[in-house]
């Protein structure tokens, strides 16, 4: 497969602060490539450099075969971009927004009519054409924004945290659309800080503090984590976490909702040590089992190995 995006040593500094630090990766055509990391990890800055909104401090990148340092106009006609914040015009109607972006992307005449109808169907807004965009629910706004971003059928789509603030059902529906695009050959570059959303990506790049700390398929990332993870349910989660931090054989203990995820060195000896610690602290042990690590476990473990804290 050909490369849709090729990034090499891409760096962006804001004064002394290095927002993106010598990032290198490739994205193939038709791939759903995910950028996972906390807020402030450099995901948005990277996307802005690839979409021509921000100049790199150093390094290079090619998008659809064009150089982000020199060929921005060519790039802009070949990409669709949806920013973190909802950024359509809320004082325009659904139709007027579509018409604006059609005009800006040079989609005119019969092709425009065809594409407009396609956007309306895709966003499920065929009966709301004259509604002001401000009156739509966030889920519909996002779909309309996606529609406007792809009105010109770009081969590459950049989505910067497209589902933040959207309810889980609308989020799921949004991802169905993303799969449709990828199936049709569109390369989708998506950033997120939702772990479960990251699982949907074909390939995932983990980012922290401006650096790329791992990149692989979600399954492979989880398999690569060699330290066993135990899942504990107890009566007082915060106190259990504190007590377990000092237990021999425990690398780390962290809260995951109501449960505790414990990273241990040895699966055979650790459970007894954990139970002993809990008993000494006067805490119950409702269940304790080995689990397949989640992406969050992978992320936390990788950040710890890098010796840095997660920011954001």
């Amino acid at each position: 497969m050909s490369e849709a995006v090729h990034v090499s040593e891409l760096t962006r500094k804001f004064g002394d602060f290095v927002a993106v630090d010598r990032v290198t990766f490739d994205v193939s055509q038709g791939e759903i490539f995910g950028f996972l990391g906390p807020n402030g990890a450099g995901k948005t800055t990277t996307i802005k450099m690839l979409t021509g909104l921000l100049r790199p401090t150093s390094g290079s990148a090619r998008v659809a075969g064009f150089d982000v340092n020199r060929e921005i106009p060519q790039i802009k006609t070949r990409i669709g971009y949806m920013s973190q914040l909802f950024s359509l015009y809320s004082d325009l109607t659904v139709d007027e927004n579509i018409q604006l972006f059609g005009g800006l992307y040079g989609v005119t005449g019969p092709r425009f009519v065809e594409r407009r109808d396609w956007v309306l169907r895709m966003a499920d807004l065929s009966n709301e054409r004259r509604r002001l965009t401000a009156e739509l629910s966030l889920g519909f706004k996002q779909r309309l924004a996606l529609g406007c971003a792809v009105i010109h059928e770009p081969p590459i789509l950049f989505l910067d945290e497209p589902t933040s603030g959207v309810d889980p059902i609308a989020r799921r529906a949004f991802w169905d659309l993303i799969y449709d695009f990828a199936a049709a050959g569109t390369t989708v570059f998506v950033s997120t800080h939702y772990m479960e959303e990251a699982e949907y990506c074909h390939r995932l790049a983990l980012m922290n503090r401006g650096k790329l700390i791992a990149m692989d398929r979600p399954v492979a990332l989880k398999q690569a984590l060699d330290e066993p993870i135990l899942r504990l349910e107890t009566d007082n989660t915060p106190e259990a976490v504190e007590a377990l931090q000092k237990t021999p054989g425990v690398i780390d203990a962290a809260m995951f909702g109501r449960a505790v995820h414990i990273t241990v060195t040895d699966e055979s000896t650790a459970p007894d040590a954990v139970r002993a610690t809990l008993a000494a602290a006067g805490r119950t042990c409702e269940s304790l089992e080995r689990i397949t690590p989640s992406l969050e476990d992978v992320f936390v473990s990788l950040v710890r190995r890098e010796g840095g804290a997660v920011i954001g």
Partner: protein
Amino acid sequence: MSLSRLWAMSRKEAIQLSRDPSSLALAFLLPMALLLFFGYAISFDVKDIKMAVLDQSQTQHSRSLIEAFERSGYFRVVRHIERYDDTDRLLGRGDVRLALVIPPRFSQDLMAGRPAPVQLLLDGADANTATIARNYADAIVARYSVTVLGGGAALTIPVEAESRVWYNETLESRNMVVPGLIAVIMAIIATMLTALTIAREWERGTMEQLAATPVHRLEVVLGKLLPYVGIGLVDVTLAVLAGVLILGVPFHGNVLLLFGMTLLFLIGALGLGIFISAAVKTQVLATQVAMIVSFLPALLLSGFMFSIDTMPIVLRIFTYLIQSRYFITVTRGIFLKGVGVQTLWIEGLAMIVFAIVGLTLATRVFKKEIA
């Protein structure tokens, strides 16, 4: 440069404008309110100046001098006072602007052919009016003296200035104010309205979405400019109509020339407004900056309110940097004097320079964000 993108921008901007009540009010109500307000309420004319008289002579001579003041139309005697001290009180309170004191020996001195001084006391707090009042009073007294010299009969004086006022025959300040006001209104429309337009896009995050499309910055600037040019031209039409039909201001010149010049002015002023808006990126700050760099100079330093010729030299030089200065010369010239391009070409050239500078500034300010 693509017409389809330019049209898409303009259309969107016009729709947004039409849905924003505060912009519409600023665009149409404020100009009309200003026009009527300045046209009716504010007058720089000096007429019916209130005066007090202390007539210690009480003779036929003194009475006819007082009558000369009243007949002139410039003065109205509102108080006849008995004591000299009263002048202080009346002037101090602002009840009268001028007091005429005729001494007891006035008549005797006149009859004897001796100089017969009278005293004029003026309220100098408003220096402008005081100066004008003094000139009128001096003229009345001088004319009275001539009559007395002739023994009551008409006397031919050797040199007499026969004055005729051109361009604004009735010397009404309204006729000056209305054409000047058109320039002030345009300055408001151009900078205050546009000051909001780009800052709003930054605040709402829509600018980033625009920047990600292939739209060129010149298309953004021109696309935003066009609807406001339309509003500006509608406002000029309304202002000319209201000025001529409601306020009775004469219009001697060429309407097309006025529109052409307005267009030049608008491009420069709108460019400046867009530049401010894009440079400061917040609506509040943009409005304040627009007030200071455009509206206030248009009101105070353009020659609209205060004559540029009487300004201190430093300010006078500074006015050459103010666009409205040239436009006011143009509107007054076209309205009152009916002059054409052969007289106004320097102003036209100046406004072309401003238009080029305005557009360049507006376009360049996006350089970092939009290709």
